[in-house]
């Protein structure tokens, strides 16, 4: 394949692209990554990583009453949000450096610039041609704009805009109660911002199970967050002092005022201006159509991550990248084709990082019911868990949906402290086709939050102990 400069060129250095690059390099391929901004993509720079840093700062702040309770004199009055912002930028910086290091270590060439696909084996980066036997598109997504609510990133913010704030607003209106909306609702409300969340659907966190969503809702309401569900945002007026949003709820119109507005209603794939139409790469509603191993309609071009029709999540992008380059490597005679041809949607975990956290995979009860699936559900509450009780985090539950006949795990939902970490035991069980009894009979260290996973599995088998 000496005719091409690289075995693989990956367009986009986010969690999909850079992971694919490392994996390709591990398999002995010559790889280049084209990145127009910063390595790490949205995840590392304007998403997962800085937001988690911010959430961590919020959690410190949230812990002040606990410190005061110990007799420690804490004066919370000097809160300087710009410092929290600084922390989040530092985290993004570290993440970017980490990715840079990985590129260097794995001898991945990083090409800075904006790439356009100019042939089945060719991308043009700022006028320069880069050729490769295979191209992997990993260009990610951007926040969705709704007409009439366009981002100005001053008062009408996207997730990027809110991460760039250096001063806290007095009040914040959030459109959308998905993971992004809820995470910022948590951060802002914790720092004392008056938060109102508007959700079009009848309940918050609509993709999550109603039971786990309820745990979060209760905690947020306690913290003073206002939720307006089944509410539609109609119009927006911005002024020097903030925003006025007219909403409609059960036929009644109402005007909500706030200093800032965060629009968090999903993300759209970055598939325009890539040269896809010219080359004839098939698209469907903006997403790239892919076959097994994430191969597009052009055999030498692959697409992964937010630009393909699978959940728009960093970990999904990474795995898809691995699958694509492993397959490419096998085509080039290096290693076996990957065992998984595509990700199984039922095995993709979702995580929402507020306090309490939510993590889940597979079927949620309301969707299972709607679909008419044969299922049973068992929930074990955190207040039956020794560790949760000892550290005063009794709000939460581990819920397992299972097949009434075989007890196959159909879905799992955890809400509460550390939910995003303890979910994986259930996910491993699901992936390996282990049964609840396998978890139920495994000794779990005491005291751990993970014991509630064991208890939930025992509950499925009809013998939870601590309840």
């Amino acid at each position: 394949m000496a005719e091409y400069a690289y075995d693989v060129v990956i367009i986009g250095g986010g969690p999909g692209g850079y992971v694919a690059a490392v994996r390709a390099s591990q398999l002995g391929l010559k790889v280049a990554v084209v990145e127009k901004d910063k390595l790490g993509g949205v995840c590392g720079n304007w998403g997962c990583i800085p937001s988690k840093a911010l959430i961590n700062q919020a959690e410190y702040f949230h812990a002040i009453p606990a410190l005061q309770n110990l007799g420690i004199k804490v004066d919370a009055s000097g809160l300087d949000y710009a410092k929290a912002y600084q922390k989040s930028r530092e985290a993004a910086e570290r993440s970017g450096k980490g990715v840079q290091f990985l590129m260097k270590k794995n001898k991945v060439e990083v090409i800075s610039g904006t790439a356009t696909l100019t042939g089945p084996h060719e991308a043009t980066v700022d006028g320069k041609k880069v050729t490769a036997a295979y191209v992997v598109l990993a260009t990610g997504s951007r926040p969705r704009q709704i007409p009439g609510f366009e981002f100005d990133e001053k008062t009408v913010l996207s997730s990027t805009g809110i991460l760039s704030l250096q001063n806290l607003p007095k009040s914040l209106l959030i459109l959308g109660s998905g993971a992004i909306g809820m995470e910022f609702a948590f951060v802002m409300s914790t720092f004392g911002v008056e938060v109102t969340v508007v959700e079009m659907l009848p309940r918050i966190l609509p993709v999550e199970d109603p039971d786990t969503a309820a745990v979060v809702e209760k905690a947020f309401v306690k913290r003073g967050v206002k939720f307006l569900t089944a509410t539609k945002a109609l119009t927006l007026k911005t002024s020097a002092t903030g925003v006025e949003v007219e909403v409609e709820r059960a036929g009644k119109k109402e005007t909500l005022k706030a200093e800032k507005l965060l629009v968090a209603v999903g993300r759209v794939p970055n598939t325009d201006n890539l040269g896809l139409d010219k080359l004839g790469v098939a698209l469907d509603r903006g997403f790239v159509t892919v076959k097994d191993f994430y191969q597009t309609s052009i055999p030498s071009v692959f697409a992964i991550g937010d630009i393909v029709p699978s959940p728009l999540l960093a970990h999904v992008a990474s795995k898809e990248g691995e699958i694509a380059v492993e397959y490419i490597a096998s085509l080039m005679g290096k290693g076996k084709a990957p065992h998984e041809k595509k990700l199984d949607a039922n095995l993709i975990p979702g995580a929402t990082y507020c306090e309490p956290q939510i993590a889940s995979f597979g079927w949620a009860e309301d969707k299972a019911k709607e679909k008419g699936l044969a299922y049973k559900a068992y929930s074990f509450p955190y207040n039956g868990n020794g560790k949760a009780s000892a550290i005063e985090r009794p709000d939460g539950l581990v819920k397992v949906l299972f097949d009434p006949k075989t007890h196959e795990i159909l879905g799992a939902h955890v809400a509460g402290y550390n939910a995003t970490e303890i979910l994986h035991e259930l996910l491993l069980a699901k992936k390996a086709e282990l049964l609840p009894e396998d978890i139920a009979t495994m000794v779990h260290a005491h005291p751990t939050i993970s014991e509630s996973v064991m208890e939930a599995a025992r509950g499925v088998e009809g013998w939870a102990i601590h309840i």
Partner: protein
Amino acid sequence: MAEKVFMIALSPTMEEGAILKWRKKVGDAVKMDDILCDVETDKASMEYVSSQEGVILAIVKEVGASAKVGDTIAVIGEAGEDPTPLIAESAPSTPKAAPAPSTASTATPATAPASTPSTSIADTATSGRTKSSPLARRIAAEKGLNVAEIPGSGPGGRVVKADVEGYTPATTVKSSVPASSPLNNDRIPVSRKRGTIAKRLSESLFTAPHFFLTLGIEMDGLLTAREKLNEKRKDKLGLNAFLIKFLAEALKRHQALNASWEGDYIQNHASVDIAIAVAQPDGLITPVVRDCGSKGVLQIETELRDLIDRARNNQLKPDDYSGATFTISNLGSFGIEEFTAIINPPGAAILALGATVKTPVVADDDSIVIKKIMKVTLSCDHRVIDGAVGAAFLTEFKGMVEDPYRVLL
């Protein structure tokens, strides 16, 4: 397109070669002139240089396996292609007919599954254990399927839910995946029953000097009589019950055949206790109908049925199958025309019954007539029974079967 890699003649005289070592493994890319494997030929060890290009999709002949020139030793093609159709083509057909008699019994000594057909051949070649997920096992158990027979598509050839749900026993036979032999190299522990059978039969054959007498019996008369009797009966009488009755009558007239060798004396038996050999999944057993001499066909039939039922369900007590004075073994239902049986001690003779076969017979008037003939072979313990004695008994029995009125004499 995947293609087969054939064993080629690596020396002018080579007809067959054994794989010494694979230089490439499944998933490896092969270029023209790459060394594929080392082959031991009739003369020397040679390098097999590839004339094909692609990725090794499957290795059909493992190290140590021998391949004739023209045999498929591997499948090569593009990564991701499914080699199984080509492997199946190159596999010797594996007849699936299970020779085991009827029901599988729980008493069967546990044996490791013969092999797990799998999409990844290498995995099955190495592990005797079937890899399967707990969920797959549970669903298989519910469906009454044996996971070991289901090809696995999970990581490392593991049998997963989808494999079990997509499995129908018929399709596997059709796609009889790799060339796995229906035979195995297992060591099967000797059960107590097997041990007893081995000990008693070798003792019998090696200590009792056997001699064999064979003759053909015209069955037309008895079959017609039985048919007539059965016409009016709901429970049909079996042929064995009649034969046992005739044997009992013949034995009553030939004490020497109803006796045992006891070393320093011959033990005569007043009761005619006739055993019949019954096949079981894990061996055979010889339940005994006691005192046949004083029982009618009907009673013999009833007792025989009960004994055979219990024999097949492993429910016989030692009293039910020991101490026969005479034994019959009937392989007629298998189509065996004649055979010799080993005497079942303490009896001094055993009668082997063959199939009843339509046979051309030269009649008294030199015309050829078709008769239903059953060949029977009497094995006698020469320490107790002499040739003429055995012959007289057998002729008596033949006469009774052919002309039942003789029983009255």
